[in-house]
């Protein structure tokens, strides 16, 4: 990631005289409290915040006294860059989880405002209600029409409460599926933005079939005949994430996490001690780098130095750039190829060659060349035979967009 891009951060851009005074005052009065508030409780950000405070104070001093201390300020800024760089390249898994949950990290609504030219929200599952934790609607990004499905976390306390901090109910998943079917009908590619601590664990959620709703979505997303790109923008919490997370491409932001269970839940169950969350986070291998290594995500979207919360507009621009690249690429595949590949991707996910036997379906195809299983068409058959079929399909798809 480039340093220059990172420093278009709102914290470091030149401020107005008024703005500076406010910052400086706040720092003098309640230094510690102010720091805690802005780091969102992230202890590892303390040194960074301290330098930032120093810079702010010096800048205010230079303005009020007309003294030339730009040299000192520049030196501090260099130290700041270095500190952020060092801190963020050495983040532990648990620290990354706290970055993913940072209260100032861009959420779905920010992306809508930041990267979509237009957004028309579509509400409701036409069965039970309109889950605020799931946001769906038509959107336009750089002239491309898409359907956006996103977990909504909210920015203010009121909003966060309204959408259960991003924990969707069954009606949320059903709403997502209903809109995805609509996208399929209109041939609109689907972008899913994942940012949830997990599906809501509650009485109503269970009564209305939380598990069934998630399972239905996972199954349905294998047969939706338009491209699907999923991106984990913050928290990728278990089944609640996967419920809108099956895609032709799965992207993950650098400081996002994606896990089978929250580190807290895992620590409580396996260590029987909620305090051991950092150990659990480490053991679960939930960072973007881990997941790329395991072949679970296809690409990491680089965040500006110091995390997306430090420079939201830079982070969002990068997401937009990568999303568009994938959408444009996927648009060139014939639908059947797309579905076969999507199927194959998950059927063989994180596969180690030779560990599991070949699929009974591909074996039969290889042995006798007979037609598929009785009763109907077969879509994808993993194994050498289908690989070559797939490759030839893909080759023919190259010059054959749409």
């Amino acid at each position, binding site marked *: 990631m480039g340093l220059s891009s990172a420093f278009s951060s709102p914290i470091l851009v030149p401020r107005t005289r008024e703005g500076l005074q406010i910052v400086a005052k706040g720092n003098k009065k309640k230094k510690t409290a102010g720091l805690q508030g802005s780091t969102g409780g992230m202890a590892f950000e303390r040194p960074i915040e301290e330098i930032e405070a120093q810079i702010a104070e010096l800048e205010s001093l230079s303005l009020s006294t007309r003294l030339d201390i730009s040299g000192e300020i520049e030196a501090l800024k260099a130290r700041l860059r270095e500190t952020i760089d060092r801190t963020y390249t050495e983040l532990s898994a648990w620290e990354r989880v706290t970055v993913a949950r940072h209260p100032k990290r861009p959420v779905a609504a920010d992306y809508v405002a930041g990267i979509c030219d237009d957004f028309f929200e579509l509400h409701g599952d036409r069965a039970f209600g309109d889950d605020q934790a799931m946001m769906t609607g038509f959107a336009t990004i750089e002239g491309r029409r898409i359907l956006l499905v996103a977990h909504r976390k909210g920015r203010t306390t009121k909003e966060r409460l309204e959408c259960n901090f991003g924990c969707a109910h069954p009606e949320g998943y059903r709403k997502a599926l209903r809109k995805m079917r609509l996208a399929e009908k209109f041939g609109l590619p689907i972008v899913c933005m994942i940012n949830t601590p997990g*599906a809501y*664990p*509650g*009485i109503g*959620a*269970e*009564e*209305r*079939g*939380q*598990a*069934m709703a*998630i*399972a*239905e979505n*996972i*199954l349905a997303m*294998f*047969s939706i005949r338009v491209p699907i790109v999923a991106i984990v923008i913050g928290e990728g919490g*278990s*089944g609640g994430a*996967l419920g809108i997370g*099956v895609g032709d491409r799965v992207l993950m932001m650098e400081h996002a996490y*994606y*896990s*089978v*269970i929250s580190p807290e*839940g895992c620590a409580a*169950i*396996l*260590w029987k001690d909620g305090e051991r969350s950092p150990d*659990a986070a480490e*053991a*679960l*291998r939930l960072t973007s780098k*881990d*997941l790329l290594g*395991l072949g*679970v995500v296809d690409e990491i979207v680089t965040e500006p130095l110091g995390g997306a919360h430090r420079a939201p507009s830079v982070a969002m621009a990068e997401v937009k750039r990568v999303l568009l690249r994938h959408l444009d690429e996927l648009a060139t595949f014939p639908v059947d190829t797309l579905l076969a590949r999507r*199927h194959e991707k*998950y*059927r063989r*996910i*994180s596969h180690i060659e030779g*560990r*599991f*036997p070949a*699929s*009974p*379906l591909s074996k*039969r195809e290889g042995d006798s060349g007979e037609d*598929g*299983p*009785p*009763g*109907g*068409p*077969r*879509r*994808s058959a993993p194994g050498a035979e289908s690989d070559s079929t797939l490759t030839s399909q893909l080759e023919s798809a190259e010059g054959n967009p749409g």
Partner: protein
Amino acid sequence: MAKQPKDPKDEAKQDAEAPEEGAEPRREGRLSRLRFSKKKDMPGGLWLKCESCSEVIFRKELEEKGRVCPSCGFHFTVPGRERIAMLIDEGTWEELHTDLTAIDRLGFVDSSPYADKIERAMKRTGQSEALLCGSGRILGREVVVAILDFGFMGGSMGEVVGEKIALAAETAARDGKPLIIFTSSGGARMHEGILSLMQMAKTCAALDTLNQSGGFSICVMTHPTTGGVTASFASVTDLILAEPGALIGFAGPRVIATTLKQELPPGFQRAEFLLEKGMLDAIVARSEMRETLAKLIDYAQGPPSEVVPTPPRAERDVPATH
């Protein structure tokens, strides 16, 4: 309400003398009283306490009755092998993929390394993994069967379980046989991290293949079926059945109770509750499982043109519970 037994032996004697055969379980009362006690079972002990009605039962009697509580009809979790013996026509079971074993790809260590846990579970159960799959016949009907065994790491789904479900679904698709799944699971296996979560997608992909091929699938949810298993392959079969009283849900009751800081309603997340809420096709007592499955297969695929006569099985003295 069942009285609290003072002397386990006296209580069991009473039961032996007057078993409440065919008694309707009082859902609201007994089944809701399930405790989250860790000591509900004493392995190897002669006696054990019913999870639902707290009666102390003679272990041998329970096993003879197909692990159905003689007092309240609660259906206990059945080990995988026992389930096969109960379900499949004698001499027709052919197990598949017994050689697949878990590997510790993440190097996961909590109180002990995951690799050691796998080894211990294998030793204890004599099985290679939590899922048994194979082909056989149910009252003459050819089927592919996959059974999750709660005794192997809580029936949790890791890579091997996911792969075997997928292979079973594809075998069913290839052979045009119905796929019958029995679940009892705590959900995804945390020790395999994100790889276990991905099994939810993998199994659904394979069931999608089976669906596309015109195949037929039934899932029987047994006590307990929760988490990532309920939220994936178990809930996307053509038919979903459950055994009486089975705990079925996404989040575990303890998690919900802790999150909400309130007591859960009586019978919450029990099979009867799910049936009432429209999540299940039917609740089927263990004693009627074989016949019911055979009937459903016949409805979906027509009666077998040539039913292979099988020796009658010893009728089990299992109280009907619905």
